[in-house]
């Protein structure tokens, strides 16, 4: 089950919980997205993440389930924050476990690519030159499209 929260999460504690009591996992691939303190030439003081409560959880759970099915994962987990984040804080954690590493890499990569085009989150940068809602990137659409089943 995915989790959406305002609080910071502890990557180590989440990894420990994800693998706890499992002696059948081969490999775990994790992705952590971090807040940066710059955007182009501007300094970013904080990042604001708005989301659509209810729909967010539904979409993230769908993405987890889809990843487990498509890549035969042993486990999948998405944790995503909302609210105000400071530079260097973690925004999102995606973990995928599989008997073989290729499936774990692909499953994790699939989840973050899909999340970026399907989960209802919106970022607003509070910068030295003002506050700006970010525009979606065409590169994210292309990244997600790679995973479409033939």
């Amino acid at each position, binding site marked *: 089950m995915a989790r959406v929260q305002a609080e910071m999460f502890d990557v180590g504690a989440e990894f420990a919980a994800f693998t706890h009591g499992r002696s059948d996992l081969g490999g775990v691939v994790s992705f952590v*997205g971090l807040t940066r303190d710059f955007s182009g030439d501007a300094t970013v003081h904080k990042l604001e993440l708005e989301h659509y409560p209810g729909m967010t959880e539904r979409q993230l759970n769908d993405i987890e389930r889809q990843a487990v099915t498509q890549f035969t994962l042993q486990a999948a987990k998405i944790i995503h924050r909302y609210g105000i984040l400071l530079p260097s804080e973690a925004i999102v954690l995606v973990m995928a476990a599989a008997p073989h590493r290729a499936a774990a890499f692909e499953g994790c990569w699939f989840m973050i690519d899909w999340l*970026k085009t399907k989960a*209802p*989150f*919106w*970022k*607003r940068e509070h910068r030295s030159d003002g506050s700006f*809602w970010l*525009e*979606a990137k065409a590169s994210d659409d292309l990244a997600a499209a790679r995973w479409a089943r033939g």
Partner: protein
Amino acid sequence: MDQQITVLYFAWIKSELGKTSDQITLPASVGDVAGLVSLLAKKGSPYAEVFARRDKIWVAINQNRAEWAQPLHAGDEVAFFPPVTGG
């Protein structure tokens, strides 16, 4: 028969409208998302300006992504938001 729906706004749409939601009573002549958008645009500024940018707006009905031609029903939760930028 008139239909009551909830409309939610997110991100810049929310910022520009200055609100997070509306309760809308749909006249019988409005049956889909496109009709709702036209109705909202007729409310004048700032709705007109926001919904003039409809190529930059996504819609969800009851928390599922939907198309402009999708029909609406009483009690629906309709959300308008920009393309997502999480992760």
